[in-house]
């Protein structure tokens, strides 16, 4: 039986952020605002009209793939919508299909949406017999891969209280996927144009490097074979030299996930991180990484729903002030891990996302890297939660990066930047004279 944490006690202590949602809009419907609708759908899920099931084609029994439908809302906003969980039965939203076109209705209004098909490679296996879906999962335009399913915190008294992943990789035949298996997965995703970015992550393992040393062969192999941008979610290393090395070996974006801003809650909900790494080291490592990696590529998760909105807002302010882009996933409680605050509604959390957009913009952080992700509302998508109605320069740049040429340019620029910035110490010993 897992310990439960009462997060509500913080609820009244911190002021809620300033609201900027257009009240008229809220009265009418969320359907016309892609950011609001994305949050709504992530929180409440959708019912699916029986006639639409066949056309949608959910993940079914695919290993490793979350149940849910990937939908594209207006302004090319992707969202992964729960549709099979019990709570979706009470959702006001219904996905319907008419004449090959899809729309979502709330009973009063409707909006046309697109369906993002599940990748075909999910149904195939590596040459060693492992389903690709178990190794790589597509979220929008990137493939998330966790080469080792092991986390030393798992099933111990320092396990993160919100953790819903099966990270007990110490058992079972595939505790760790080989470099070749990961490469096969990336190649399969590439063939379907689903791997603009690769996202590698790792659980906690005791070591000074934060997991980079383990990921190094995967990073090198992916960089050698594919022109994909590569993000790594690791732990803050003991020494900043590892952050330099993380960039040098080919990582384009790095995430050290703080998860909780509030110091006390951090200690309670993430006891392992608090004890073995420390909240201050997270902030220090993020601050340093922001001086090494390109603008907008250093990020940190703050889980929405595990601490009061005011606390998350303060976290956003801290991270953006040091050049880090906050990523705000919505916490979905799993069985036995009900640690979230209540009520978690769009009205409560939408202003947090609005603040996210303003803070990122105010601090001049690029929004072009954290984009097209179906399981979170990105900072740029959050512009629809503010008064800013215009499609700004950021949106224009993002639409360029979404083209094939734009992707190649992004990769080329990232590679050039690394070539210019990284100096291997041994190079200084090479003298051109003979």
């Amino acid at each position, binding site marked *: 039986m897992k310990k439960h944490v009462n997060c509500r006690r913080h609820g009244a202590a911190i002021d809620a952020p300033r609201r900027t949602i257009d009240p008229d809009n809220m009265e009418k419907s969320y359907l016309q605002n892609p950011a609001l609708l994305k949050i709504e759908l992530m929180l409440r899920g959708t019912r699916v009209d029986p006639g639409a099931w066949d056309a949608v084609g959910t993940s079914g029994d695919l290993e490793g793939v979350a149940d849910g439908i990937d939908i594209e809302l207006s302004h090319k906003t992707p969202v992964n919508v729960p549709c099979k969980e019990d709570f979706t039965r009470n959702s006001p939203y219904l996905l319907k299909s008419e004449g090959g076109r899809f729309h979502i209705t709330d009973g009063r209004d409707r909006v046309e949406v697109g369906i993002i098909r599940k990748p075909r490679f999910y149904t195939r296996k590596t040459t060693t017999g492992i389903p690709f879906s178990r190794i790589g999962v597509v979220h929008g335009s990137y493939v998330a891969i966790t080469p080792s399913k092991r986390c030393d915190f798992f099933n111990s008294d320092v396990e993160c209280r919100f953790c819903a992943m099966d990270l007990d990789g110490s058992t079972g035949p595939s505790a760790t996927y080989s470099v070749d298996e990961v490469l096969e997965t990336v190649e399969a995703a590439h063939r379907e144009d689903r791997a603009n970015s690769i996202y590698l992550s790792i659980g906690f393992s005791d070591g000074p490097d934060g997991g980079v040393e383990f990921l190094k062969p995967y990073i090198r192999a992916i960089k050698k074979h594919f022109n994909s941008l590569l993000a790594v979610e690791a732990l803050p290393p003991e020494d900043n030299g590892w952050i330099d090395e993380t960039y040098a070996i080919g990582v384009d974006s790095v995430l050290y996930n703080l998860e909780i801003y509030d110091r006390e809650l951090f200690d309670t909900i993430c006891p392992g991180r608090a004890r073995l790494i420390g909240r201050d080291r997270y902030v220090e490592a993020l601050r340093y990484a922001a001086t090494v990696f390109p603008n907008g590529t250093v990020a940190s998760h703050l889980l929405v729903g595990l601490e009061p909105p005011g606390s998350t807002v303060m976290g956003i302010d801290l991270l953006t002030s040091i050049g880090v882009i906050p990523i705000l996933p919505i916490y979905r409680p799993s069985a036995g891990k009900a640690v979230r605050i209540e009520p978690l509604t769009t009205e409560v959390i939408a202003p947090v996302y609005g603040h996210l957009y303003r803070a990122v913009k105010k601090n001049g952080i690029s929004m072009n890297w954290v984009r097209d992700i179906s399981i979170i509302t990105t900072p740029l998508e959050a512009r629809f939660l503010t008064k800013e109605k215009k499609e700004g320069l950021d949106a224009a740049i993002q639409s360029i990066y979404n083209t094939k040429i734009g992707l190649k340019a992004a990769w080329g620029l990232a590679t050039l930047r690394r*070539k*210019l*910035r*990284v100096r291997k110490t041994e190079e200084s010993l090479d003298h051109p*004279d*003979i």
Partner: protein
Amino acid sequence: MPVEIDRRPLWLLLLVKGTRLLLLLSLALLFWFIVAIDPPQGLSPAGKNAIAIFIVCLSLWITNLIPLAVTSILAIIMVPLFGVLTEKETYSLFGNEAVFFILGAFILAGAVMRSGLGSRVATMIMKRFGGSSTGLARSIFLLAAVLSFFISEHAVAAMLFPMVLEIAKALKLRPGKSNYGKLLFISLAWGCIIGGVATFLGGARVPLAVGILRETSDKSIDFLDYSLAVLPVVVIMLTVGYFVLARLFPVDIEGIEEAQEVLLKKLQGMGKVSYNEYAVGIIMGLTFLAWFFLGRALGLALIALASVVTLFVFKLVRWRDIEEYVNWGIILMYGGAIILGSALDKSGAARWMADMTIQNWAETPLMVVALFSLATLILTEGMSNAAVIAVLMPVGIGMSGSFGMDPVIVTLAIAIPAGLAFALPMSTPANAIAVSSNYVNVKDMARAGIIMSITSWIVFNLVARFYWPIIGLKF
């Protein structure tokens, strides 16, 4: 893989890194421009192309945009490609005696180092004559000089460096602060530099200069004649160097017992003189005698190569050992430089360039010597001394023709000062090694080195003016 992140603004990094490509592109454009235009009066089309190639190689040698040896390979490609010489002529120049002499000298020096003979001689001399603080510094200075008469000054500096460093540590000298530390390391560097110009063996630059001389005229310089011509410069500069060092870096320690202990331990560790050391010593001794007395009759390269074969006959070295000591880059660089020099000469470009440049400033042969020695001394502080030879020799040979001078004079006026680089660590490996110890900083070296450079120019010109005519080098 330790890495550093360069945090300078990206535009600046782009500019810095892009400069190399931009310069290479500019050079390529300049080359095509010269090739495309009509040759000026008095210059053949082949001569004009030779000058275009020369400008490209000169720029690359000065800027080090690509390694020196690779620039020479470029010259080997371009000379026949642009019709300056035929392909056959070009490659045959690579078989120049100077190239094989340099190869032989590298192998012989490798044998001396590998056998342990070099270290033993050095340690014995320092132990024998380094009884006091000044005596030890003086013995390092003279030992470095004398060893550089026989093997490359670079090899001598590399061989003596660990010993001097060990002595400095045993004496607990403070890096960057101790005067005595500075004295020891600059003595090592200057000894190598001054000794290195004394014979053909101190560095490969003299054989290169002689190689270009031989390919571009019917003249040559043999081992003995060269040493005779340079002897007063070496003696005077050693004396001046000794006094400059004593004046600028007065001894600030008292006893050197710890240094003596280090040397004693080192000698004891070497054991008795081995068969290999005896044998290599005998072969080297015979080689020197042959260079001095039979050099003119048999040729220096032939003697060097014969000694190399003898080393292998008696199994004194293995090829694998020797490969560590042969700098193939230098061999390539010299071959290319000789080809370029010959191309400039045979196409008439060297003469034309000399007429257009230094001839306008020089009015007498003495001024030619003064100008070339000055230009060489300045250039050699900033670039490889071999590259200086490659750049100035073709023009110098052309110049000697314009003034009706013996080309041997101009060759000496370039070859000798090319080795006298005292002021900067990038000038020569001996200086770089001294600075790498951290006991000497660049400022110390430059301050003392400038005095030596100016003195050496004056001394060289006085020797040329008053001593050379006595030994038959008239101009």
